[in-house]
């Protein structure tokens, strides 16, 4: 019985996230868009939890909602006027985009439904945080280090780009 509630919860979460995703694309006010994105991120974190990836959910919240969204909103506040609303793009553009997205969706849906995914697993235990850490340090240690360097470089790059010129 509890599972049923959980499943219902997940579907509700999905619907909420989908709505928030479309809201973030359609809302004229960019700030609302950004917040809708935050809502989507939290929903996805919830989905990660439902998929058993706790560490990932927490990382998602910490990195995305904590840092990236703050950055985005900082940018929105710095660039947008206090009450500016964003002008939506031309009618043809929106129509064309809508049509192409719809086609894309239909195509991939076709693919999804036609292939038979392996049965929803009950058995194998989910990797715990420890397994994740070990795997990160063993098999994926190289990308991990490269990632560190990349983030360091982006840090400096972003500083240099956004810095107000001295002269």
């Amino acid at each position, binding site marked *: 019985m509890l599972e049923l509630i959980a499943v219902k919860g997940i579907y509700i979460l999905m619907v909420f996230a989908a709505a928030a995703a479309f809201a973030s694309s359609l809302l004229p006010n960019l700030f609302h868009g950004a917040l809708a994105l935050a809502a989507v991120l939290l929903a996805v974190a919830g989905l990660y939890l439902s998929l058993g990836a706790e560490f990932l959910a927490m990382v998602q919240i910490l990195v995305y909602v904590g840092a990236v969204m703050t950055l985005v909103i900082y940018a929105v506040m710095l660039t947008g006027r206090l009450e500016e609303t964003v002008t939506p*793009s031309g009618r043809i553009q929106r129509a064309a985009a809508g049509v*192409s997205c719809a*086609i894309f969706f239909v195509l991939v849906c*076709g693919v999804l439904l036609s292939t038979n995914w392996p049965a929803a697993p009950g058995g194998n235990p989910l990797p715990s945080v420890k397994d994740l850490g070990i795997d990160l340090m063993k098999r994926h240690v190289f990308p991990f280090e490269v990632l560190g360097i990349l983030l360091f470089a982006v840090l400096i790059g972003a500083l240099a780009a956004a810095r107000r010129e001295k002269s």
Partner: protein
Amino acid sequence: MVTLLLHPLSPAAFPLAAAALNFIFGKQLKAKTAWISSAASLMSFAVSIFLLTRTAAHGVMQGSIIWLEAGNFKITSGFLLDPLSASFLAVVSLVGMLIQIYAAGSMKDDPEFTRFYSTLSLFMAAMTALIAADGLLLFFMAWEIMGLCSFLLIGFWFQKEAAAKAAHKAFLATRLGDLCLLLGLLMLSSSLGTLQFTALSEKAAALGASAWLSAAALLIFAGAAGKSAQFPFHIWLPDAMEGPTPVSALIHAATMVAAGIYLLIRTFPVLALDARVLSVIAAVGTFTAVLTALLALRSQEIKKTLAFSTLSQLGMMAACIGFSNPGAAFFHLVTHAFFKALLFMGAGNVLHACGTQNLGRLGGLGRPMKLTSGAFLVGSLALAGLPPLSGFWSKEGILAAAHGYSPFYFGALLLTSFLTALYSARLYLQIFEGSASRSADAETARECPKSMTIPLLTLGVLAAAAGIPGSPWMGYFFQTFIGISPHGDPASYAVLAGSLIACALGLAGAWLSAGPWRGLGLKETAGAGRFLEKAGMELPNSAARLFASGLKTAGRAAACTDRLLLDGAVMLPGVLLQLAAAGFRKIQSGFILHYLLAAFAAVIGLLAAGMNF
């Protein structure tokens, strides 16, 4: 060191060194350049005299170095000293020396003094090198340098419009001749395989006559005609008088113009292969002689008259070669060098003395300029062909050859010699005889300084005595010495009588026209004179211009076809590309969203394809 000095090419080396010296240190040396080049020509004269005696004693001297070697193809060039070239060398270096001494006096106050002398020495070097050359290659190079020097010297006073134009015309005319010579030369070398004079004759004899060789011969004659100003190319010599008088004396009387004849003599064996070639040469030579003799009568200036007389004498020499008697032509060449240089120097003195050379304003200079008038008299009489003087003997040789060849040519040449006698005597009478009152500057005229008159006198003596070695009195020693061709039958009295009568008639005519019949018949002959002038001079000029304009239009036509076809072909793809680019540019609208949309559409396309609907 001594043997090196006496090397056959050293007569060329001295003037070359002098030319270089003058050219480089010209500014510092100033007046002394005259002494340097005269000394150089003196040295080359002395060496050539020594060489003359050696060749006379030991016979032909020959030596050559390998000029160019490519695989089995080898070109050698060097010197060939046989009696012909040795004697010509002596004559040329002697005349050159005298003229350089004379020039020192006449060109004294000219600002470009050093440039004059360095070019003159360069010319002497080229002339001597040409004479001593053993093959057509070195000969052709010297030939070209001479052409250059004549251009520089004619256009010496390049500030003067006329001088520059004359130099230009002379250079172009001779260039055309050189072109033909080069073609002929190449044809010869390709067919006979060699350019050496000695080898040339043997190979030609071995090969026998052929259209190719006769064409080559004709081309060589055209080259000689260009340089020696035969009929179609004679237009440049009268204008070349714009240059300073020593230049006219040296180049346009004695040496350069003679080079053409010397070339014909050297390549005579090839010319002789085909009788038709000889007949062409003879015809052209005679025609030039007659025509220019008539023109000489009309001209009013001393130097122009002398120029025409040179043309006619050269015509006679060419004709003589045409009559297949190069020896007589050479003998006349030598004597002509002496008295023609003398006449030109005389004209120079007159010009130097009274500043003008227009016959109408001259007259009665005999008394103030005794020496010049005396020498001038000897020169003009030699030109006329008075018996004891050199002119008679050499002309008589030519007339004998003409007589042997065909009576028609004999008559024509007799007419020429009569006309020659007529205008040379008239010239003398108009300048030096008659009343002094006619021209204002006649009174101021004074004898020129010693440095100018001495060369005049020596040439006077030479002009008088040069004929004797080739005369019967010395048993035709000169002809046998150069040994090119046997002398004609001296015994034919008709020839002897004909020349004597022609000379006498000419002198009498001159005396009459200058004295009692002055101005008689001038008007009647004016019309004919102008027609003659037009035919003789303007026609070839306009022909040349026509030829030039023809070339120009041909050039323009070629240019536009080139631009149209070639460039067009190249430009076509470029133009097409630009059109296409203009079309495609619209796609790049600058809006990121369009690009995104396009990219996304592509993705969908791929996807659809991937799922092979």
